């Protein structure tokens, strides 16, 4: 699926969605129906894990062999010795190095900007009273499910007008628009920020800006972290808009992968080496913070 970095939200789970399920509560959650899994259940689940993981393993195998190895029957199923050589080839042929740097800049800027914009707006929608609040929130939520892909033509005309084609801001600025993020932060703050806290601060004479930075942000931090993770992954993997707005002169990783697959590199093992390099950063994030990402998706989940 190739939505821009703007995933729609799952229906807010009626369950005790907020807060990590502690060990004591775990026994009661899962509908209390904690049947023990039998051997068959484990077998099916492990099979599913293997199917999920196999393409990654295969990428490593194919990226560490020569093209001739890959054309052998029977195919070799263990990694070979040519990984470094293939990395060098793809760095030289497809400029993956620049693509990685660009992707880091683009995804990093989108993440920081989105989290900031969405926390500000989410706070206002959750806790401030102003005219038109309901209507503005309705517009935000109402457009959440419309795929941004449908707007790419006027968007392209716009950035062509601004002379932004092939410049990173053409991907960064539209990437900051996350209706989902606003909704997510609003829900988070409605649940976790008590009104009494804000009232007390107001009685003490704190301005709204002061309240935002010294009360809201510290409380919102876990929600901001989850939103940041999901935004980073979505931005890193975004495909349609970057290949429209950028070219091989200023590629992100996905643009470079598209060129690799576009036929001018014929060496399959080099293509696989590029795929591996382009996927590693996001796998790294996933490996370190996978548990948080799983939690974020299950809490009120997301699709990218």
């Amino acid at each position: 699926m190739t939505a821009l970095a703007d995933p729609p939200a799952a229906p807010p789970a009626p369950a005790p969605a907020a807060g990590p399920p502690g060990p004591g509560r775990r026994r009661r959650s899962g509908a209390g129906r904690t049947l023990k899994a039998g051997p068959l259940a484990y077998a099916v689940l492990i099979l599913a894990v293997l199917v999920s993981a196999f393409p990654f393993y295969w990428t490593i195998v194919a990226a560490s062999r020569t093209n001739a190895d890959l054309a052998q029957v029977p195919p070799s199923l263990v990694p070979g010795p040519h990984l470094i050589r293939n990395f060098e080839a793809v760095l030289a042929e497809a400029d993956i190095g620049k693509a990685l740097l660009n992707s880091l800049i683009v995804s990093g800027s989108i993440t920081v900007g989105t989290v900031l914009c969405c926390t500000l707006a989410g706070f206002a929608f959750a806790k401030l009273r102003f005219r038109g609040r309901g209507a503005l929130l309705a517009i935000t939520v109402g457009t959440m499910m419309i795929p941004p892909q449908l707007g790419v033509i006027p968007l392209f005309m716009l950035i062509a007008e601004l002379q932004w084609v092939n410049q990173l801001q053409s991907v960064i600025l539209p990437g900051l628009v996350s209706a989902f993020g606003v909704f997510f932060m609003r829900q988070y703050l409605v649940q976790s920020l008590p009104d009494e806290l804000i009232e007390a601060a107001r009685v003490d004479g704190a301005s709204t800006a002061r309240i935002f930075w010294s009360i809201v942000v510290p409380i919102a931090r876990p929600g901001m972290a989850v939103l940041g993770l999901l935004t980073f992954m979505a931005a890193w993997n975004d495909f349609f808009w970057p290949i429209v707005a950028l070219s091989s002169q200023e590629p992100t990783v996905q643009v470079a992968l598209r060129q690799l697959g576009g036929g001018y590199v014929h060496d399959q093992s080099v293509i696989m080496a590029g795929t591996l390099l382009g996927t590693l950063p996001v796998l790294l994030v996933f490996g370190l913070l996978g548990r948080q990402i799983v939690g974020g998706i299950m809490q009120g989940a997301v699709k990218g």
Partner: protein
Amino acid sequence: MTLTAPAKAATAPRQPALRRAWQAVSPYTYVAPFFTLFAAFGLFPLIYTAYVSLHRVELQDPGSMEWRGLGNYTALLGDEFFWTALRNTFTIGLLSTVPQLVMALALAHLLNHRLRGRTFLRTAMLLPYATSVAAATLVFAQLFGRDFGLFNYVLGLVGVGPVDWQSGTLSSQIAVSTIVVWRWTGYNALIYLAGMQSIPSELYEAAEMDGASRWRQFFHVTLPGLRPTILFTVVVSTIGATQLFGEPLLFEGSMSGGISHQYQTLGLYMYEQGWGFFHLGRAAAIAWVMFLLILVLVGANALIARRRSRKEAGR
């Protein structure tokens, strides 16, 4: 909305007028950054698409627009490849969405048991979701290779002759759908799992007292309890399926979706018209058709869901 706003603090009467005025305006400064970007890069392009679709606009000079009325739409309806793309979008949509959601439901049911290593299992199943469309497709394109692909080798071991995953209509569509299924099944399983965990345990206890078997409990407690979640995943997957683009583009690297357009989707057709043939106006018309298609499909889903739940209630 049940939000209480503490804006009217006890100190109100003593405030100077300037400060009060600022308090009325200041909430807008919090939503302003988002809405400025949203208006420029989100809402405007979506709405303007309809206007562009009534004009001739070419990629070489996107600044000049020439009124064309419904010309782009009639041209579309007269193009056989539009109909091919529409048909392919439906068949690939079914081939990817149905197995994906059924398998996700089964996996979620298993994950809802008491398990060792549950965090590991959940995380591992979400791994494909973290992969980009481009990376996944390049790897699967390799695995689906006709002559040296691993899948054909394994099929050969069980006596099934080499399948041409690229040029056959059904086979290529199955291959493209496989990539979608691989990327999204685990994600949907976690969504279903979250839904299952919110079903009150009393319902299961009551069913158990009535002597309902595990199997009957799944069909009469779990599935009805999951209905809103299932509707959500069906809607999101349907929208995703109408937008399918990266997988067919990178499967062989061509914009036409195979030599005879056998797996070209509407998303890819739009891209080909706009950035392959330079007809941005025509591409905008396709985008608008896709939007209407989504509205119809989502509306149909909601209608079916409502009718079903009414039937249940009447029983």
